[in-house]
Structure formats: C-alpha cells, structure tokens
C-alpha cells in the first residue's frame, strides 16, 4: 500500500473533525467533566484533576537514543527551511555520522516569497534556529560512533512526493496527479511549515519525561520552546492571511492537515495532566465562546496543556503511515537510530 493510500485509509477511519479544541475536549472528557471546561466559562471551574497516572515505559532507552531521534527530526526541519531560505540543503559537515545509512535531502528549492519580505525574514530566522538545533544535538552526541548520519529525506514536489502525498491524504489537493509545492508561494510554505512545527513540539514534549540527564532535559525544553515559538508564528500568520483572503482556504487547509496528523498518530488514552489525547491536533479555526470568538493558535487541551506524542506516533506522521512501518513519507529509507518504527505502540 502506498503512503498515500495508508494515510487515506487512516483518514477514512475517522470522522473529519473541525470541532474546536475545547468543544472537542468536552466530548473526550465526558459530558460531566467537559461541561465545566468550555472556554467561555472563564474561571472557577476545577480543571480536571486526573491525577498522576504512572508513566508507562517498559522499555528503557538511553539519552543517546532520544537525542538521535530528535536529530532525525531536526535534519528534516533544518533541510526544509534551508532550502526555503537559501535554496540549498545542509552542508556535508552537518549531516555526517557513524550510525545508520546516510542519505541526501532532495527536492527542495528557495521559496518564492514575492512581496512577503517579513515572512522571508522569518523563514531565514527559523532556518538558522533549526540548523543550530542540528549542530547542538550533534555536539551533545559528540562522537561519530554514536551520532546518526542524516537519513534520506524527501522534500520534493512530484505527484508522489511526501509533501504531495501528505497534502492529498489531508484533502488539501485532490487527484493522483496533483502536486503540493511548498516552495511555490508564501501560503504553501506556511502550510508546509505548519505540518512540521507542531509535530516538533509534540515530539519534544513526549520525549521530555524519557530523558535522564538533566542538562539534556533542560536543553530539550529549550528546543521545545523554540519550536513552539516557530509554530505560533506560522499558525498566527496562516490564521491572519486566511481571514484576509478566505478564498485561499488557509484555515481550512490547516485544519485538514491537523486532521490528517490526528488520524495518523492513533488514539492513545486521554490524560489531561500529561497532555495526551486520542484527538490531539486541533487546527486553527476559531471557536465561539461566551465572550466572543477566540482563536486557536495554541494546540492545547482543556487544561491549557499542549499535547505529547511518543516516538512511534511521531514517526507515523513523518512516515505518513498509521500502522507499523520502518520507512516512508519524508524518510523514504527510514530514520536512523534506535527508534525506527511507527505506530507500533499505539
């Protein structure tokens, strides 16, 4: 089954959701608890204790495993933004490693930002941040004997590229020959960035409790924060531009991408304190509250806590495969390191 078919299947398996994050939580929590959590009721409500479940981790991973897993994601993001901002992939000095199979990042090019000078500047800043993350993680790993090589990364724009398959499965494009080209316009760039940034936030958040070394933990929290800054920028720009030009369907497309991610990553049991949920990916459509419309820039649960994804969930999205797979989507030969398999733990 192709990536696209797998993703379509996953999407078909669920009801397309456009509900607001909070209305949506109302269902997830259950009517009794949920009724108190509506956004408009600003205050006194108790915030759903759901106290302290025991974190489940029967498998022990080393910090090296986790840093390498993160490095795969940073290779993906850094190459994407590097193409977008400069037209080039990362240099050879930033991608070598002694673990796994080395591959190239292919298919990207500089974005045609047109008159959107500020967004072009943002892209350059994000590119610099992501490259810094690659270099930081590589420096922490310190030795080529434990550092993963960059795996093959598909950033292309053919009808069967990862971007096109993702966009087709989400419903942003339709038809087997249709292409989604993130480099063709500012709007397409923002949608592609949207696909990656929230994923990074959930990945770092889900990995945080797995990290043993406190220095690494704090550093990971720093990367998590930066990814969230990026994500907020992208989400708020998409929202503003979507309202200004409704025909561009940016709010709708972002919602479709979120729904696709949400389908791919399975349905873990709700945990309102840790920020785990079966439906963990709200789009950017506004919600109606008693105080008026509220935006949806922060993908968070009723407690205002953003979501976690475990590595298998993250890989399901990166591979565009809801089921267990070791390659696909943006990583056609799979990621390198210990965490390789998508979907397995869901």
């Amino acid at each position, binding site marked *: 089954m192709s990536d696209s078919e797998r993703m379509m299947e996953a999407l078909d398996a669920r009801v397309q959701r456009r509900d607001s994050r909070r209305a949506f939580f109302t269902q997830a929590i259950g009517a009794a608890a949920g009724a108190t959590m509506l956004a408009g009721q600003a205050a006194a409500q108790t915030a759903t204790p759901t106290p302290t479940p025991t974190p489940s981790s029967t498998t022990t991973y080393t910090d090296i495993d986790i840093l390498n897993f993160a490095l795969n994601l940073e290779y993906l993001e850094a190459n994407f933004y590097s193409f977008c901002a400069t037209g080039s992939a990362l240099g050879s000095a930033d991608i070598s490693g002694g673990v796994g199979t080395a591959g190239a990042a292919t298919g990207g090019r500089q974005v045609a930002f047109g008159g959107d000078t500020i967004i072009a500047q943002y892209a350059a800043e994000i590119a610099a941040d992501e490259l810094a993350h690659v270099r930081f993680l590589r420096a922490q790993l310190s030795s080529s004997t434990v550092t993963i090589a960059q795996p093959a990364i598909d950033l292309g724009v053919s009808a069967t590229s990862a971007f096109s398959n993702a966009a087709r499965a989400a419903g942003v494009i339709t038809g087997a020959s249709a292409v989604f080209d993130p480099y063709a316009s500012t709007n397409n760039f923002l949608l592609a960035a949207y696909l990656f940034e929230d994923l990074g936030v959930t990945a770092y958040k889900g990995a945080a409790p797995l990290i043993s070394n406190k220095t690494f933990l704090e550093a990971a929290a720093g990367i998590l924060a930066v990814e969230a800054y*990026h994500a907020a920028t992208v989400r708020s720009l998409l929202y503003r531009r979507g309202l200004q030009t409704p025909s561009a369907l940016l709010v709708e497309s972002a919602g479709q991408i979120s729904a696709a991610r949400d389908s791919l990553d399975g349905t873990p049991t709700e945990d309102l304190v840790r920020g785990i949920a079966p439906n963990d990916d709200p789009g950017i459509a506004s919600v109606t509250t008693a105080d008026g419309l509220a935006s949806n820039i922060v993908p968070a649960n009723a407690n205002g806590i953003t979501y976690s994804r475990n590595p298998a969930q993250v890989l399901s999205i990166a591979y565009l495969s809801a089921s267990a797979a070791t390659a696909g989507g943006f990583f056609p030969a799979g990621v390198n390191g210990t965490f390789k398999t998508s979907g397995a733990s869901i």
Partner: protein
Amino acid sequence: MIKDSVFAAIEVANQQRAARRRFIKLAAGSTAVAGSLALLSACGGSDDPSPTPTPTPTPTASGTGVASDIAILQLALNLEYLEAQFYSIAVLGRALPESSLTGSVGTRGNVTGGRQVNFAGEPIIGQFAREIANDEIAHVNALRSVISAADPALVINQPAINIDGSATGAFAKAAQAAGIANADGTFDPYASVDNFLLAAFLFEDVGVSAYKGASPLITSAVYLEAAAGILAAEAYHAGLIRNEIYLRGNDARLKANKLADARDTLDGPGVRDGRLATVDATGAVTGPNLTPADSNGLAYSRSTGQVHNVVYLRTDAGIGGGFFPAGTNNSLESLRTSATPTATPSPTPTAT
C-alpha cells in the same frame, strides 16, 4: 511567564547549570517542604554538563520527590495567577472567581488595577487575546487541581497582585525602567491594543524562561510532562504576541526591544532575553528576531530567583515588589525570593 518562573526558581537553587544535578528526593508531605531548597542547592555532585547521558530509566511519578515538586508548582501558580488576572480583566472584563483564588498557603491578596481593553477596532487581536486569557485561566485551575490532588493544604492563596497602569503601578514602573515611559510617567496596558500587546510581551517570554529553568528541578515525570505542556503553551503565546507586535511596525518593535532589555537587566548579568528586532548601529530596525534563543537555538532559562527579579522589578535579593507587592506565596521561603545580582549562572548550556 509564571510557569517559567517556577522553573527558574529551581534553577536559582542550583545556582549554576554546572551544578546540575542529582535531585534530592524529598519525602512527600508538607512537612518535608521546609528547607528542601537548601538541599536542592547542595546536591550538586555530578554536574557534568557535557555529554555523558546516563542510561537510567525514566523516573516514576510516585514516591519520593513530590514535596519539592509541589513547591515548584506553587511558584508556577503564582505566575499563572498574575497572567490569568491580567488577561481575564483586560480581555474578558472580569477577575477570576474567588473559588479559583483561595488556598491554604500564604496571604490572600487582591488585584490592584486593570480594566477591559477595547479590541473593537482589531477583532483578530481580540480573538487572540481571548484565547490566551482562557489558556491562562485554565493553567490556574489545572495547577490548583494538581497541587490539591497531592495535598489540598498546599494550594497557595493568590498573593497581592498589582497590574496597575498609573504612574505608581507595576506596569508603569516596568515601562519607566525600560525607558518607554518617562521617569514618573504612566504606562496603561488597557488604553490601547498597542499597549496591551506590549504588556503581554512583558509577561510571556518570562514565563517561558521560568518553566524552562525549572524543568530540570522537577522529579515527577508526570509533573514534568504537564509543565512541558504549559511551557509550550506559553511559548506559543509568546510567539504569537511577538509576531503581532512585529507586524505593527518599528515603533512597537523598538518598545518591545526596550522591555526585553529591561527584563535582561533586572535579572542580573548574563543574557537571558532576546529583543524582538535586530537593529543597526544607528538603532534602526534591520529585521525580526521572532524567537529569543541563544546561539544553540535554545530558549533561555531563568532561575526562580531571576524570575522574581523580573516580576518584583528589583535587581537585589528580597521578597515583594512590582507585580507582587507582598511577594509570591510558597511553602518554601526561598522560592519567594529574588536573586542577588552576583548569583548569575551562565545563561545557556554550551554545546561542548
């Protein structure tokens, strides 16, 4: 920011990133709270910041370590009280209900200042503001619930909060320190959307740095994951606010720069803050700096003391001032206290 400060407080205890850390696992229960901070700071041992990842398994949420974690959550709750009241009053036109404000630890204070901002001319920013307000209110209630679930007697009262824009109010003092108001001038966050955004800017990045700084001090994996989720929400807010200010043009950008500089001055030597815009030698804006991060692309940390320096608007060690005239509330006295200017851990981990 409040969240951030909790984390940052933890860091103050450590004093140096280098001292990082084996956590002392304190027995659960309120009696264990007193004095535990000293233990935290004393437990420096294996602080090798360089890459020696140890393969120990994930910590469990149960058992030891709860008491010190709760003090961190209390610190975060102070910051959330501040943010939630500011946004709730400014955006929704009402303060939080009493049931969200009372507790058993510390003195119950009132809110001074604040009124509803008119977003009629800028409905999209009104939507953003309502979202942030609701998130911050949710954070207050979530933290109260989590603390209460551990021990209902450890929920802190809302401390006295000053969010006044008059010449003697905390916002005006911050603006005076930043040089965006005259020495005895006012800064009214409620008078315009521009001012509201700048006031939000003042808070949000501090929250991020506080939660990040506190992250390594949390021993419970569950609390850590929850805190990481609040940290991320604050960073989303901060990114949103920074983008909106940047889009408004150079006047707003330069004012935000001054506020960032003021925060960085308040918390002592070392860089723990990032301006919104880059400027050239003449002071003219040359481009955006949407994400405040170091050369490794990491957001900054503040210790608990440094967070208090910012919210107390004071550069010396002490309890109270600025946005918390009577200080924050906490079972641990040390987590109410701002840092001395000499207590300056290097701001970011090195990559070597």
